[in-house]
C-alpha cells in the first residue's frame, strides 16, 4: 500500500472527526452568531465605537469667508415673505417669484409636469421654476442648486394628496422668501466659481424629480423639457422653513432613495458652520442633551460622574441612529433632496424648527442666521476644486460630530449572514445524513489497521457520492417549489397594483385610491394564502424540507448581503426581521423519520414561529406603520408605490420578490 496515500487518508480521517463535531454543534453556533451580531449592534451608539468626523476635502475651507448676509439683507426676506403671503393662489406666488428673480438679473424658466399616480391613476400637476445666476467669469460647466418647495414637509405627512384633501397646506413661504433674498444677495458677490441655480418646486419630491429629469435631458413623457440649463450640478441645498416668528433649531435631512447618502463632507461643513454661527444643529431634529464631543468624559472613564453623561450620549445616539437609519432604509424623509442623490448630486435639506415658548431667547434665530449658514455653505461648495471625495458616503451618524465607517458597521450583518449560513449547513448535513447511520456497523472487523482505514475511506466516499445522487434526485422538486414561489408568486404580488390600476381604468369613474388600496391589500393577502395552500399541497410527502430550508436560508443570506453593499440600513432591517425566525426554523425532516417523541415540543415551537411569521408579514408591517405614523392606509400604500415607480426604490420589489415568498416558504417548511 502506498504510504503517501495512507497518510492522506489519516489526515482526512482527522478532518472528518472535527467535521463531525462541528456538525453536531452547528445549530448552536448559528444561535451564538446571531446573539453576537445583536450584541454588536448594541455597541454602535457607544461613544467609543464611533470616530470623530473630519473634513476629507481640504478645498472646502468651511468658515473661511467673511459673511455678508446681515440683518439688512434679511429685511428683503421679510418683504418677500409678506408679499408671498398676500398672494393666495400658487399661480400668483409663482409669478411673483419669477418676477423677483428676473429683476435680480437671472434668467428663469418654468417647467410644468403631470404625473399619474400608479395606484389611483390620479394626476398630479405642478410647475417648477428655476433661475440661473451665471457665475461672473465662470465657464458654465458646474453649478450649485438652492432649492425650496412650496409646502413645508413633515415626514410622511407631506403627502400632497392629504394636503389637497384637507385644504390647509403648510406652506414653505419663509423658505421661498429666504431663497429670493439669498438670490438677490448672491448677485452682488463676485467670488462664485460655479453657476447658482435657484429652484422652486411644486409637489415636493415629485416636482424635484421631474425637474432633475428635465435638466439632465431625459425624454420623459410626464415632464416638459428644460431648455435653460447650466453645467453639471455639484451640490444642492434645500430650504424648508415653516411659518414662524423664530426658530430654535436647524435639522439636516439627508437620506436619499435606496439608501443613498450625500457625501459626509457636506454634512461636516454644515456642522462646523452652524457651530461657528451658534445655530443649534441636529440630525432630523433629534435633540441632544450632551456636549457635541464629550472628549473629556470619554477619556476619564473611572470618574463615575461621567457615567451618567455617557449614558445620556448613548441614549441620544441610539435615537439618532434609529431615526437616520430608518429614513435611509425607507427613503422616506422630509424635503426634496432625495431625488438629487440619484443624479449623483450631493444634497441636504435644512429644516428649521419653530421655536416654542420654552426655548430661551438666546437660542432663537430667523432669516439672518439661516441666510448666513447658506451663504457660508455655498462659499465652501464654490471653493470645491474637484468633486467631493469619493467613497465618503458609507457612514452611519450617531451624532453630527461622530461617524461609524463601513469597516465598523458592516461586521454585524456579515455575522448574521454567517449565522444563516451555519443554519443552512445544519439542515444540509441533516439532509445528507440519513444514509450514514448504517455505515458504522461494518467497522468492527479486526483487520489490518491500514485496510480498515482504507475500507472506511472507501465507504465514506461511496456514501458521499450516493447522498449526492440522492440530493440530485430530490432537488428538482425543491427547485420547482422555489421557482413557483419566488418567481411565480413574486411576480403576481409585484404586478398586482398595476393590474388593479389597469382594471380600474376600465371601470369608469367608480374607482378611488381608497378602493384600490384595499383591493390591493386584500388581493395580495388572498393571493398569498392561496399560494400557500396550493404550494403546500403541491409539496408531496416525500418532499425534503431540509433541502428546501437550506435553499431558502441561502437565498435570504444572499439577498441580505447584496442589499447591505448598497443600502446598509435596509439590509439591517431585512436581517433583523428575517434572520431570527429563519434560524429558529426547525431543521426539518424527511417524511420517514418523524419520531413521535419530539412532536410535542415541536408543536409549541411551530405555533410560536407561525405567530412570529404572521407578525412580520407585510400586511402587518404596513398596519404597524399606519398606526405609528398616523398616515391613512391608502396614502401609505400609494406612497410606497410612488417610491418605486418614480424614484426606483427597491423596497417594493424586495417585498414582492424576496420577503413575502420567503415567509410563505418558511410556513411550508414549518408545517410540512
Amino acid at each position: 500500500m502506498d504510504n503517501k496515500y495512507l497518510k492522506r487518508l489519516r489526515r482526512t480521517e482527522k478532518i472528518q472527526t472535527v467535521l463531525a463535531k462541528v456538525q453536531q454543534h452547528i445549530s448552536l453556533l448559528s444561535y451564538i452568531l446571531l446573539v453576537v451580531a445583536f450584541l454588536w449592534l448594541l455597541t454602535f451608539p457607544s461613544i467609543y465605537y464611533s470616530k470623530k468626523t473630519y473634513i476629507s476635502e481640504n478645498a472646502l475651507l468651511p468658515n473661511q469667508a467673511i459673511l455678508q448676509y446681515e440683518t439688512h439683507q434679511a429685511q428683503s426676506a421679510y418683504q418677500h415673505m409678506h408679499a408671498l403671503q398676500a398672494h393666495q393662489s400658487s399661480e400668483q406666488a409663482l409669478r411673483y417669484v419669477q418676477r423677483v428673480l428676473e429683476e435680480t438679473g437671472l434668467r428663469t424658466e418654468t417647467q410644468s409636469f403631470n404625473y399619474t399616480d400608479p395606484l389611483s391613476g390620479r394626476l398630479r400637476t405642478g410647475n417648477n421654476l428655476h433661475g440661473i445666476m451665471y457665475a461672473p467669469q465662470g465657464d458654465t460647466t458646474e453649478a450649485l442648486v438652492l432649492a425650496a418647495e412650496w409646502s413645508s414637509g413633515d415626514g410622511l405627512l407631506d403627502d400632497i394628496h392629504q394636503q389637497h384633501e384637507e385644504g390647509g397646506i403648510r406652506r414653505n413661504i419663509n423658505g421661498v422668501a429666504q431663497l429670493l433674498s439669498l438670490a438677490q444677495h448672491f448677485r452682488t458677490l463676485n467670488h462664485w466659481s460655479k453657476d447658482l441655480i435657484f429652484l422652486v418646486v411644486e409637489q415636493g419630491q415629485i416636482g424635484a424629480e421631474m425637474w432633475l429629469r428635465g435638466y439632465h435631458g431625459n425624454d420623459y413623457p410626464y415632464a416638459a423639457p428644460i431648455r435653460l440649463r447650466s453645467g453639471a450640478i455639484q451640490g444642492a441645498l434645500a430650504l424648508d422653513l415653516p411659518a414662524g416668528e423664530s426658530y430654535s433649531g436647524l435639522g439636516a435631512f439627508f437620506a436619499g432613495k435606496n439608501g443613498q447618502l450625500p457625501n459626509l463632507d457636506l454634512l461636516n461643513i454644515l456642522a462646523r458652520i452652524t457651530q461657528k454661527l451658534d445655530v443649534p444643529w441636529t440630525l432630523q431634529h433629534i435633540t441632544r442633551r450632551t456636549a457635541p464631543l464629550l472628549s473629556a468624559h470619554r477619556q476619564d472613564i473611572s470618574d463615575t460622574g461621567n457615567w451618567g453623561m455617557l449614558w445620556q450620549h448613548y441614549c441620544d445616539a441610539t435615537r439618532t441612529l434609529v431615526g437616520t437609519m430608518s429614513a435611509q432604509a425607507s427613503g422616506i424623509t422630509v424635503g426634496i433632496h432625495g431625488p438629487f442623490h440619484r443624479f449623483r448630486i450631493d444634497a441636504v435639506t435644512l429644516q428649521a424648527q419653530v421655536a416654542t415658548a420654552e426655548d430661551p431667547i438666546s437660542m432663537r434665530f430667523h432669516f439672518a442666521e439661516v441666510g448666513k449658514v447658506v451663504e457660508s455653505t455655498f462659499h465652501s461648495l464654490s471653493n470645491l476644486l474637484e468633486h467631493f471625495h469619493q467613497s465618503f458616503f458609507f457612514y452611519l451618524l450617531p451624532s453630527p460630530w461622530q461617524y461609524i465607517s463601513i469597516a465598523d458597521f458592516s461586521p454585524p450583518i456579515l455575522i448574521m449572514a454567517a449565522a444563516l449560513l451555519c443554519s443552512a449547513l445544519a439542515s444540509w448535513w441533516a439532509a445528507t445524513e440519513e444514509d450514514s447511520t448504517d455505515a458504522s456497523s461494518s467497522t468492527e472487523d479486526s483487520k489490518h489497521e491500514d485496510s480498515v482505514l482504507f475500507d472506511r475511506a472507501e465507504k465514506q466516499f461511496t456514501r458521499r457520492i450516493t447522498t449526492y445522487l440522492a440530493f440530485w434526485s430530490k432537488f428538482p422538486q425543491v427547485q420547482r417549489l422555489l421557482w413557483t414561489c419566488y418567481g411565480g408568486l413574486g411576480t403576481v404580488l409585484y404586478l398586482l397594483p398595476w393590474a388593479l390600476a389597469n382594471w380600474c381604468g376600465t371601470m369608469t369613474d367608480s374607482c378611488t385610491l381608497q378602493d384600490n388600496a384595499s383591493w390591493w391589500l386584500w388581493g395580495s393577502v388572498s393571493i398569498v394564502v392561496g399560494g400557500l395552500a396550493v404550494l403546500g399541497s403541491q409539496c408531496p410527502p416525500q418532499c425534503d424540507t431540509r433541502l428546501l430550508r437550506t435553499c431558502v436560508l441561502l437565498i435570504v443570506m444572499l439577498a441580505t448581503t447584496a442589499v447591505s453593499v448598497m443600502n446598509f440600513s435596509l439590509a439591517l432591517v431585512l436581517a433583523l426581521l428575517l434572520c431570527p425566525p429563519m434560524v429558529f426554523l426547525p431543521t426539518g425532516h424527511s417524511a420517514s423519520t418523524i419520531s413521535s417523541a419530539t412532536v410535542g415540543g415541536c408543536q409549541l415551537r411551530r405555533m410560536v414561529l407561525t405567530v412570529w411569521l404572521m407578525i412580520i408579514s407585510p400586511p402587518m408591517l404596513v398596519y404597524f406603520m399606519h398606526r405609528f405614523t398616523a398616515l391613512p392606509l391608502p396614502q401609505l400604500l400609494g406612497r410606497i408605490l410612488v417610491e418605486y415607480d418614480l424614484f426606483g426604490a427597491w423596497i417594493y420589489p424586495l417585498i414582492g420578490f424576496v420577503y413575502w415568498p420567503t415567509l410563505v416558504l418558511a410556513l411550508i417548511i414549518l408545517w410540512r
Partner: protein
Amino acid sequence: MRFLCPLSITLLGWGLAESSSFPSTSLESDRFTEKLLINPLTTDKVLAHFDFTITSRWHTPEGQEPHHYRLFPRLIGQIIEKFGIREFHLSIGQGRWDYDSWGYPVEPSTSPSLELWTRLETGDDMEDRWQGFTNALSGLFCASLNFVDNTTTSSPLLSFRSPSQLQKLLQDKAEHPTTPEATSPTPSELRHTFLAREGVCTENLTPWIKLLPCQAKSGLTTLLNTYRLFDSSYHSMSIHVHRTCLGESCSKEVWRMRQTLTTVTDRLRLPRQSPALLDTLFDRSLKNTCPLADQSTISVLVPTEGNTFTLQSKPSSWSKAIPIPERKVALFDLKSLVTPNQSFDIDITWPNTWDAHGLSRSSIPLVMHRYVTGQGLERNGLEVHLENRHTQDIPVVYLDTLPWYLNVYFHTLRLEAQPLSAAQQPQVLARANTTTVEPTEMYLQPSHDHGRPAVMEIRFTIPAQSLVTLSVDFDKMFLKYTEHPPDANRGLNVGSAILTAALVSPSTVTPCDYQGLLHPEEQLWRHVRTTTESATVPEVCLTRLYSELFLVSLPTPDFSMPYNVIAFTCTVLAFFFGSMFNSLSRGYVVLSREDVQNTTESPGTAGNTSQKNGDTPVSKSDQKKSQ
C-alpha cells in the same frame, strides 16, 4: 520664399472682400489705430471693446525689399515667416458670453477657453511646423499652447472657409465640392484647436500689451486696469494676423494685425459708480493718446430707448455712416479732445430704475446652447438647441470637435425641428410637432483612441421661427491613469461647438455692425455681395456663434478602502463561484468494476485504480481530467 504668392482675392481669408478707399499715404508706411467701443448691453452690463490695429508692409509680396519692421512687431513677423503661416487667430477668454441678454459680441470668438485657428502653407513638414508654431505662441503669450497635439487639433472643411466661399456655401442649397481652397495657387491647410480650461491672467495680458507700439505707456492701453479687467463678468483678448489687400484691384498686399480686448463689466458689482464713464468702468481716466497712432477714438453706442445710460458729454461727431439698430453712435476723437494737462472722461448719468434685460429675447435672430445629458455614466449625450427667432430660414454650418475619450455614436445623430410657438408653451409636455431636418452636407470624422478627436460638421438650414435640436449619444471611455491631468480631478472640459451662420437682414446689432464701425475702410464681415449687383440682394452678415463648454467627469480609479474591500472580496467570490459552479454543473455516476478496468487498460492512463479491491466509484469527470 514662402510668401511669394500671386495676388488673388480668394487667398485672403476672412479679412476682406472688397477693396475700399484706403488713404493712399498709408500705403507707404505702417499705420496704427487705437479704438475703444463702449456699448451698454443691459441696465447693469457695459461692454468695452478695445481694438488696436496695425497695418504694415513689413514684407512685400515680391520680397525684393529687405524686411523692415516699424510698428508691426518683429516677434510676430518672424514666427509667421518661420512656420509658413498664412493667417492666425488666437483668442483667450474667460466667462460666458450671454447671447440671450447681450446680443452678439464684437469678436465672434466667445469661447471661454483658448481658441487658435490658423492657415498653414501646405508642405511636407506641416505637422512639425504646426507644433513649432504652437510652441512659439506658447512662449510668446505665456499660454499652455504647447499642450496642443493631435488629440485636440482638427481641420474643419466648411466652417472656416473664406467669407466669399462661405457665402456661396450657405446661400446655395446645392452641394459643393469639398476642396476648400480650390482656386488658391499655393494651397494652405486649416488647423483649429481649443484648449478648454485655459484661464486668462495678467501673465497673458502683459505680453499681449507688449506687442503694441505704445505698450501701456500712453493712449487707450493706459485704461487697461488689470484689477477691473479680471473682475469683469466676461473678458476675452485676441490677436488676429492676416493678409489683406489695398487698392482697386488688390494691387498692394499688406499684413494686418488686430489686437482686441473685450470686457463686460457688471456695474452693480462695482464699489462705486461715478458719473464719468471711463472712471466707472476702468477706475482710470485718459491723460494722453498714443503719439504713434494715426487714429485714436472712442465710440459710445447710445441706446435710443431702453434703460441704460444717457450721455452728457458732447461728442466730436455723431456717426451716421453705419446705421446700427436701436443705437446712436457718438464718436470721440481723442487726438483733438485729449489735452496734455487735463484728464479726459465721458460724462454720463446712470439710470435709477431697473430693467433686467436690455435686449428682448426675440430680437436676437439665432441662439445656440449646448448641454450634456445624462448623469454619471448613464445615458450620456449631447443636446444642442439652435433657436431661430428670425422670420427667415437661416443656413448654418455646425461644427463640433469632441475628444477621443467621448465615444460618439454617430448613428444616434438626430436633427429635429419644432416650431418655436410649440416649444415655448410650458404646458406642452412632450416634444410636440417635431420634424426631422435633412442636413445638406455632413462630414463626420470618427475619433481614434488616444488620438485624433471626433469631428462633426453639418450643414443644414434652420427653418424660420423654430427650434432645432441636435442630439447625439456618447459613452465615456477610460483614460490610462497617466493620461489624467495632473491637477485636481475636476473633470475635463470640452471646447465649444461653433455655428457658422449667414444672418440675413438681422434687426439687432451684429458683429458686422461693430466691425463696420471700427474698421469702416474694410468691410470685414459684412456685405459679401453676390456677383449680381442687384439692389434687392439682402444685407447678409456672416458670423460664428460659440456654445458653452461642458465638463466630462470620466470614471476615475478610486483606491479608497471600501472599494478595495469590495474588489478583493468579489475576486475571492468569483474564484469560489467558479469552482462551485464547476462541481455543481457536472453529472456524477457510479461506475462498475468492468468500466473501471476498461478505462485503465486503455493506453495513456495511470494504473492506480487497478490495485483497488471492490467497486470503486470513480467519477467520470475525474477520468476525463486524467485523460
